[in-house]
């Protein structure tokens, strides 16, 4: 019998639409606490929109979202976003050095980040201390993504939302990040929701997987579902990606 986990996030008949266009349609389900759930699906399926709703950057146009069993609207948006961290797909950097970017989450709370702390966060994502004083605009795409992940870790959130964080990385860096995510998940019991186009990654790292298409959840379950999907659409999607 499948073990039932306490939900970190629960969605109840959630819709999101802009004008007449439905981006998310009637999604109900839970992201288990302390587990890694991967979101897969074709571009435009609504994965990023779903993540942004969990971080409170946007609100559902219908339905409810619960974070640790409390309605999302009852949280102060600032507290919510510190508790539910998000690494954005474009890995935007503010003007300044890598250190200033890493310090940003604390600076927003009028706190400072010790240099040793910054070096430690850089080490977590496989970057050495020489990066600390580099200008963020001089970083490569992969390095930006690594700094973006390190910056998200600074708030020490209980839930982390990761939007295609390895898409611009080389194979070696992808492996490093995957190991880091697993390490953080094991060590701090952080709940992770990870959007990825890499189905092997979803299988290897994710405890659970949601397959989204056209704003709807088509299939969910343990990540091994990707090896033998029940839904015809998911079967075709998996075959298409794997080929």
């Amino acid at each position, binding site marked *: 019998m499948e073990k039932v986990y306490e939900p970190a996030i629960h969605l109840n008949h959630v819709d999101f639409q802009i004008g007449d266009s439905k981006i998310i349609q009637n999604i109900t389900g839970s992201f288990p606490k302390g587990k890694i759930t991967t979101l897969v699906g074709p571009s435009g399926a609504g994965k990023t929109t779903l993540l942004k709703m969990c971080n409170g*950057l946007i609100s559902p146009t219908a339905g409810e979202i619960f974070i640790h069993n409390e309605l999302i*609207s009852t949280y102060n948006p600032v507290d919510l976003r510190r508790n539910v*961290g998000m690494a954005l797909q474009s890995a*935007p950097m*503010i003007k300044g050095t890598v250190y200033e970017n890493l310090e940003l*989450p604390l600076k927003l*709370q009028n706190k400072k980040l010790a240099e040793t702390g910054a070096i430690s966060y850089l080490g977590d994502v496989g970057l050495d201390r020489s990066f600390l004083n580099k200008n963020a605009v001089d970083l490569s795409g992969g390095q930006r993504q690594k700094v973006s992940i390190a910056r998200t870790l600074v*708030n020490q959130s209980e839930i982390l939302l990761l939007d295609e964080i390895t898409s611009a990385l080389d194979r070696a860096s992808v492996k490093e990040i995957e190991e880091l995510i697993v390490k953080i998940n094991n060590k701090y019991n952080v709940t992770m929701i990870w959007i990825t186009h890499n189905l092997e990654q979803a299988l290897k790292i994710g405890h659970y997987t949601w397959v989204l298409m056209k704003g709807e959840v088509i299939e969910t379950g343990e990540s091994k579902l990707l090896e033998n999907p029940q839904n015809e659409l998911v079967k075709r999607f998996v075959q298409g990606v794997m080929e």
Partner: protein
Amino acid sequence: MSYLALSLTLIFVLIPLILSKTLNLGLEKDTFIATVRSIIQLLAVGYVLKFVFDSEHLIYIFLMIALMIGTATLNARKKGKSIDGITWKIAFTLLTVEVLTQGIILGFQIVPATAQYIIPISGMIIGNSMVLSILFLNRFTAEMSAHRDQVELILSLGGTPKQATHHQLISAIKASMIPTIESQKTIGLVQLPGMMSGQIIAGADPIQAVQFQLLIVFILLTTAAMSSIFLGFLSYPTLFNDRMQMLKEKF
């Protein structure tokens, strides 16, 4: 100046008209409209000012200032259509800048409290404040749409809308103030300001003209700073909702 001399000034309108026609710039119509408008508007305001100065009635002074603020607001608001209530925000900014500046000038009796001083100085305050508002809104809306990913980043990390727009606000305030500050650095060396030149041509003592010009220069600095900062702090909250989310249609 005689009417003959005044009519001869139209030579300076003919020159750009001929140049535009010769070089196919297509500016003849706009030049013609601008000329006709400036003649009508300036003559009308001349007669209105004469009436107001002669009557010395407070209500006419207020009406003149209200007309200036109204016209300046309608002109500046075109640049901030994405900001809710921009008309009232600009009107409030212009009114506040005018009241504070005139309050200091008249409160300290720097100039006599007569229409002859209040109205032209108000014109300069409100005119400068309007240009600053336009420059600020232009830059602020451009900064916000160019850097929406950074605004989203700061919000996602638990920043407030004020923190998320801080960089864009500062950039827009600085950019809108630069022309005022830069033009004042070379004042008297490169260009003689219009008001001072006018006074000198009209036969005033140059030192007296310079003293008044210094007053105006300092007033313009303070109006520049106040206009962009007031408008900035009135504008940014309307780009977000009460859940501290970016209103997409505003960016």
